């Protein structure tokens, strides 16, 4: 079965390389990824939940007022008389105090003011609540926005404990998370609708965002501030897992990359270190140390590549390497055309980086 898959993958690689070499402009469509929950009203944490409650209250009041005004209009149309085109204007109102209309306007304005005050108070209270979330024994993560991917740096007690990954934010369920948000180039905005509101990443500034996931699961996030060509595909996944599994993941991530075992992978490592890849990517434990692009030390442990754009499978990996512009026009990753066997080896190596 695995062999079968690999064979199909190679077939695809060959096809992709062929297509690329032929300079085919048209694409064989993008294989969709399976996105995590991505909905401001499907909440999975206290922050989003509080906002959800405020949302319900606000929508309720606003709908009521909206309907009231519409009713007013309909009523006015229904009860006020009709006039002929040439009917003279009714001037009786001039210089007369129109008590009825006056009172009703007064009342309506009064009621609106009261309702607005309710909403202001509710909003401010919620805002305070969001700010006051308990942060004890929180996980600290540095998030840096790049055009068009997310760099995630996990700290540790010892410097050696810290590690860098990209586009997949693992967090423990039930523990607060504190994100330190920075931008490397332009303004981006970090947003996971199901967990919390958004916060901008602004060059020259540092912002913090804290939230908590109370249910294990995958939650999709996406850059919300327009940031150039690939703003549309600057996504990421938040993976909330039980503490033990989270700890296991952290332990694994702290390890340097696995040394290639089989010949194909070893060959792939040579290809990696000898081609354009090494100019931007880092793989801990090898000479590849550039930090201009996602850290690939544990690439194979991720579910997606290209910032949540493609599923992390050898076929997609090969097509992506051969011609990234096909999937993300304008992305900073150059097309790397390799002979079929080199590409096969390279993909095998990358897939081995568990």
């Amino acid at each position, binding site marked *: 079965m695995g062999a079968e898959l690999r064979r199909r993958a190679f077939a695809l690689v060959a096809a992709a390389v062929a297509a690329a070499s032929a300079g085919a402009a048209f694409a064989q469509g993008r294989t969709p990824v399976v996105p995590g929950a991505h909905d401001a009203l499907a909440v999975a944490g206290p922050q989003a939940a509080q906002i959800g409650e405020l949302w319900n209250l606000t929508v309720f009041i606003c709908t009521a007022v909206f309907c009231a005004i519409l009713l007013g209009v309909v009523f006015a149309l229904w009860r006020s008389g009709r006039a002929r085109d040439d009917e003279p204007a009714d001037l009786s109102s001039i210089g007369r105090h129109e008590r009825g209309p006056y009172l009703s306007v007064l009342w309506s304005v009064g009621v609106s003011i009261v309702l607005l005050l309710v909403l202001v108070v509710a909003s401010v209270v919620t805002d305070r609540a969001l700010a006051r979330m308990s942060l004890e024994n929180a996980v600290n993560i540095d998030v840096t926005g790049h055009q068009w991917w997310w760099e995630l740096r996990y700290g540790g007690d010892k410097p050696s404990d810290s590690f860098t990954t990209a586009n997949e934010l693992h967090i423990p369920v039930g523990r607060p998370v504190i994100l330190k948000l920075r931008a490397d180039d332009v303004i981006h905005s970090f947003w996971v609708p199901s967990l919390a509101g958004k916060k901008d990443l602004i060059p020259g500034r540092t912002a913090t965002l804290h939230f908590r996931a109370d249910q294990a699961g995958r939650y999709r996030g996406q850059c919300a501030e327009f940031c150039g060509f690939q703003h549309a595909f600057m996504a990421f996944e938040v993976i909330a897992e039980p503490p033990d599994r989270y700890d296991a993941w952290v332990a694994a991530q702290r390890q340097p990359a696995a040394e290639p075992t089989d010949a194909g992978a070893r060959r792939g490592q040579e290809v990696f270190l000898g*081609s354009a890849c090494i100019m931007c990517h880092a793989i801990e434990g090898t000479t590849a140390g550039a930090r201009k692009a996602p850290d690939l030390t544990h690439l194979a442990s991720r579910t997606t590549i290209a910032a949540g754009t493609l599923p992390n499978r050898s076929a997609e990996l090969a097509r992506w390497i051969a011609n990234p512009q096909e999937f993300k026009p304008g992305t900073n990753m150059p097309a790397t055309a390799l002979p079929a066997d080199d590409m096969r080896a390279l993909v095998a190596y990358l897939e081995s980086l568990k």
Partner: protein
Amino acid sequence: MISRAPVVATLLACALAGCYREKREFESPPETPARDAARLSAVLPGGSAPLKPGAQPTPDRSRLDENAFAVNQGKRLYRWYNCSGCHSNGGGGMGVPLMDAEWRYGHEPRAIYASIVEGRPNGMPAFGGRIPDEQVWQIVAYVRSLSGQVQKDVAPSRSDTISGAPPENTRPEAKPAPGKAASSGR
């Protein structure tokens, strides 16, 4: 009624120039798969067997230095690939300055291309095979802008960093002259 033709021609020329200056060309995969990666030189001074220009026929993309986007990409790569590490903002340091009129190996795009791909003695590594041709040409275009050899409306302006050398689009054009070996001891 004095002949309208030249006027129209000029306007048209400007228009086309404008079009090309603003074109955002996203790299398409090269026609020919690159040579066997394993035989490529490591990024070391005087590294082994750089590719010969011509041995790998690469399309001459020197026209990129009329394209603002390409020049700007070149600027980004110049930073990313740490060219600035030796050449700084063109003022030079470990490496030769790139903003003066002195070009030991020629100032033409192809010569600069060769310098990057093959490397040069006294420390310029060969980047052949490590930097895709398209990007090399972008860097070439940017390097030319460092000495003001690129149109002002194409050359990059200041970057969002500490202001070092004056921005490329304000640099006077350095009339390139073949460098004298005498002054190579820089």
